[in-house]
């Protein structure tokens, strides 16, 4: 039972990060109809910037802030310099270009920092507090929950209650009409990319210390898990992304706790295939039909 509680809390903490990362994927998918396969590499790049800043100044929090700013800028840059010029006629094209970005980013990081694991700092202890003799959760887990809770609520508030959020939704939903009504559709798209990339960078900052450490490929498996989370929830649904993230986190935690951590990648693949074959639109998708 102790083990079950521990694995559940650990899974929720991991799942919160997947949820944030999946949310970033959903943000771009809704704005641009592109699944950003470069999200993991972009987030790692931001985390490396934070690593450099933290190493130079000795302050974790400055690095944390810089990572988010770097993520925002990188997202805007990727949209303006690369993605905007891609022909979206075939859905393959943006995917291929994003994969090219993955190669470039990982290569540049490898050239600058080397392809070895670097230890990443944590601001709070990762040893679990005990409540009534049961190890429940660590201060770091609390920090993860709080940060991601704030981000998810802020995004929800922004899209539902602010003028900018309304414009972003309008630009994604009906670009032509929005343009006629004076919405800066291109600018909204760039803002969407920047926000998503910022959230991705935040997720990377939170997840990397809990795994092997900083490495150009550190987010590869996280990306696959987050993609699975987004698919579980349905690529169009932000709420689905959050729920999907928690589901995937719990599943991975139980699999690695009871069956061995080597099996987690396989579990992700099985879950992804199962969801896509049984309910391709995700658990939260409205009933929709694909042609043919």
């Amino acid at each position, binding site marked *: 039972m102790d083990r079950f509680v521990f694995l559940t809390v650990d899974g929720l903490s991991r799942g919160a990060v997947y949820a944030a990362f999946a949310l970033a994927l959903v943000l771009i*998918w809704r704005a641009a109809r*592109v*699944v950003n*396969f470069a999200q993991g590499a972009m987030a790692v790049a931001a985390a490396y910037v934070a690593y450099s800043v933290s190493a130079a100044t000795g302050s974790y929090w400055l690095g944390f802030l810089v990572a988010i700013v770097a993520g925002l800028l990188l997202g805007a840059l990727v949209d303006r310099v*690369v993605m905007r*010029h*891609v*022909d979206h006629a*075939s*859905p*393959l*094209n943006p*995917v*291929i*270009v994003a*994969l*090219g*970005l*993955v*190669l*470039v*980013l*990982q*290569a*540049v990081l*490898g*050239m600058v920092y*080397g*392809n070895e694991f670097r230890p990443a700092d944590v601001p709070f202890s990762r040893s679990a507090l005990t409540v009534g003799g049961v190890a429940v959760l660590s201060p770091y887990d609390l920090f993860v929950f709080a940060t991601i809770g704030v981000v998810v609520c802020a995004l929800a508030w922004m899209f539902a209650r602010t003028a900018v959020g309304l414009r972003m939704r309008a630009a994604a939903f009906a670009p032509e009409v929005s343009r006629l009504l004076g919405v800066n559709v291109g600018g909204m798209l760039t803002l969407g990319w920047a926000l998503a990339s910022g959230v991705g960078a935040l997720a990377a900052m939170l997840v990397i210390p809990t795994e092997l450490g900083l490495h150009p*490929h550190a987010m*590869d*498996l996280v990306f*696959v898990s987050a*993609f*699975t989370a987004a*698919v579980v929830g349905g*690529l169009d649904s932000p709420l689905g992304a959050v729920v999907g993230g928690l589901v995937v986190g719990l599943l991975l935690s139980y699999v690695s706790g009871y069956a*061995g951590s*080597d*099996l987690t*990648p*396989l579990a*992700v*693949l099985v879950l*992804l*295939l199962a969801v*896509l*074959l049984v309910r*391709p639109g995700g658990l939260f998708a409205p009933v929709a039909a*694909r*042609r*043919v």
Partner: protein
Amino acid sequence: MSATRAALPPRQRAAETGDRPLDRGRRGSTLLRHLAVLLVVGLVLVAVSYAVEPFRNFQLATVAAYLCATAGLTVLTGLNGQLSLGHGALMATGAYTVALCQNAFADRGLTGGWLLALSLLAAVLGTVAVGAVVGVAAARLRGPYLAGVTLAVAVVVPALAVTFDGVFNGEQGLSVPVEPPPLALGAYFPYERWQLWLSGAATLLALLLVANLVRSRYGRTFRAVRDDEVAARLAGIHVARTQVLAFVVSAATAGLGGGLLAMLAQSVSPGAFSLTLSLFLLMAVVIGGLGRLAGALWGAVLLVALPDLTHSVTELLTLSPAVAQRLEGNLPLAIFGVTLIVVMIAAPGGVQGLLSRLGRGLLARWPARRS
């Protein structure tokens, strides 16, 4: 398809749309034409294998192995419109099958040149089985979903080698015992030349089959499904079956390519079949030119030539060993990535597209030569 176009006589309609006329005579000669090309290329390859040094022979053999995989990926992505990021994993399947077979033969004390052929056949069959499973799932998926699943395959399959390290020996991988060249070729026959012969022969055979398939009824259904699924179904094509078939064909060639790589390197390890390999294959196909088998050749050449080229460049610069090592491992990746992005944005037809556009431009400039 408008009524006026449909009413034209077939030959005139073909001339208008730019299709080749598909009467019996032309179609019947496709096999012979491909066989003739095969023979010429084979003879040239043998001549080249005597002319160049052993290391170049080995490189050419590697190009041949990659060509198997890129040709298969061209069929799948270029002709059938299905994106696969998992071909590195399929190559790993083929490579590990060859390794397990060769080790099993060696343990039982079996020797003989035909054993390698048997292992490669097993690699193709094993990969076909895996490809059929992935293909059945893939046929139900589109666009980014398909890319995500195949990406997961590419990340997960190499990890399996570590999970089941009793069979696959974890990160260390397996060694692949391969017979030396037959004595009939002489005592001092270079091993690399023998590798090129084996690898070249297997690849040419695979290419012949794929080229004929592409020109056949099946090739046309592949393209029809890629261009418009609804129209294809209305024309009586079973869309899902066609997509699974394309995936299986593509998997078979990828498995053969992986098996050949295992034979060339005489070892297999999960590190050699990482996600990066899958991305490399896709990139090679895109840069070479999607939808053209000749593009697969450019891609395969690039995969071998670019790392070699960056190696010579970094050797020219005077760098500290640590920096040189970092550059050498990552510079090809960066160049590949930048090229991929630039090609996708500026020249979606790839190298082969540029070449054929160039060729058409030259022909148009001298109309007298056309007749």
